[in-house]
């Protein structure tokens, strides 16, 4: 199992955790942890794996490639939900949402972090949230 990007999330004994950044000067939390020259301004922080749905939409057509790198094509593409999940006291993160029941999504509903296969090879995973 290979993460889609280094430093995006890590496995812990209690399951996966997203890695955010806490800005040194004011404690503000951002996601993802900034890389490059900006990284010096932030300390890495493991984010909560539970939160509430802040907003959502559904991607109804296959995004343009590049940048999209899904292993589907125009015909096999399946619409997916995505949105924002508020992690209490930390930050609101953008995420793919794991559900087939788009009509049941509601702002404020509890959500939990998960990993899902994504892209080529089958062993690459990205993060997502699912209704909890």
């Amino acid at each position, binding site marked *: 199992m290979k993460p889609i990007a280094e430093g995006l999330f890590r496995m812990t004994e209690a399951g996966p955790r997203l890695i955010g950044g806490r800005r040194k000067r004011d404690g503000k939390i951002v996601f993802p942890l900034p890389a490059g020259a900006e990284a010096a301004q932030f300390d890495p922080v493991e984010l909560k794996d539970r939160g509430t749905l802040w907003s959502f*939409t559904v*991607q*109804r057509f296959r*995004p343009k490639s590049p940048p*999209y*790198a899904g292993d589907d094509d125009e015909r096999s593409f399946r619409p997916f939900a*995505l949105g924002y999940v508020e992690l209490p006291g930390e930050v609101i*993160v*953008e995420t793919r949402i794991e559900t087939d029941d788009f009509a049941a999504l*509601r702002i404020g509903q509890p959500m939990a972090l998960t990993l899902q296969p994504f892209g080529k090879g089958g062993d690459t995973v990205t993060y997502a949230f699912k209704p909890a």
Partner: protein
Amino acid sequence: MTDVHIVGAGIHPFGRHDDLTGLDQGVFALREALADAAIGWEDVQFAFGGSSAAGNADALLPRLGLTGVQFINVANGCATGGSALLAGYWAIKSGEFDLGVVVGFDKHPRGAFNPEPAAWGLPEWYGETGLMLTTQFFGNKIARYMGLHGITPMTLARVAEKAFENGARTPHSWRKQPVDAATILSAQMVSDPLTKFMFCSPAEGGAALILASERKMRALGLAGPRIRGAAVRSRMEGSFEVFAPSLDIVRGPSPTQIASKAAYEMAGVAPDDIDVAQIQDTESGAEIMHMAENGLCADGAQEAMLRDGETRLGGRLPINTDGGCLACGEPIGASGLRQVYENVQQLRGRAAGRQVETARIGYTQVYGAPGLSAVTILEA
């Protein structure tokens, strides 16, 4: 300090023009504006011009005449036109110049914009996993707003229905076919809750305005609306903008809210004084949210306003009288100036077929990525 007036206005119809470059359309608009003010290119003391995807605006110069005029290219995302106007306003207000032009034109490829993560300072995974689409941002933003303020999908449809209705009455619009709300609502979903008829498309077009000091205007025997307020503002901490992998829990004001407030203060008018408004309607939801962000109504009041036709032609506060971006498309460099062009026509009583009777104060607001907004308030 002098007042600044708009004494001429020109536009190249928006839409698709396969045999014309973006530059051609800018030249057309500028020549129409010069003719409208009955001045020559050699009379122009300065120009601010912008184009996002159709080359340097400065390339207008060989076409119009190499007069040595001060020409400055403006690039400020979707607010390029509004920013050019603000620059022209200050050039005259400062007393340095008394006659100049602002111009914008553009020509975009068909279909959604195709951004690269690196160009936005974002990691590759963000684009790879299908999270980097402007349409998603619009869907997310309006979905939350609807949840918080009780706006229904039918209200989104009514915004688009009004846009196509007004577009059918406007010479410079692209979409001239009315589409009813039921058709809009049941059309193919792009990014929930927004269907394909609720989104504007990239397009082509050009718009130009002639600005003059009050003294110069009188000396030339001209007349035109006075710019009472103009402001450009960028995003603050906690605003929700396109391509944001995370947001602050503590929410802040939008760039539109602060630009709007600054323009009202500068103009010395209140939202109640506005007779006609052109506001950014990249999609139906944007018009709904911008109604409130510009102080034109309370959050949630849009539901009743749209149902009762208050923002239609003939309503209490007509909004996007030329069909806005939904019916005109969005050539980035020209879009903000199109809004001002439309208000100039309204305030001069020249908006045949869509005229707002006795319009005296006109309001425009253009918003765009990566999070800025430009507002102008004109008085007849």
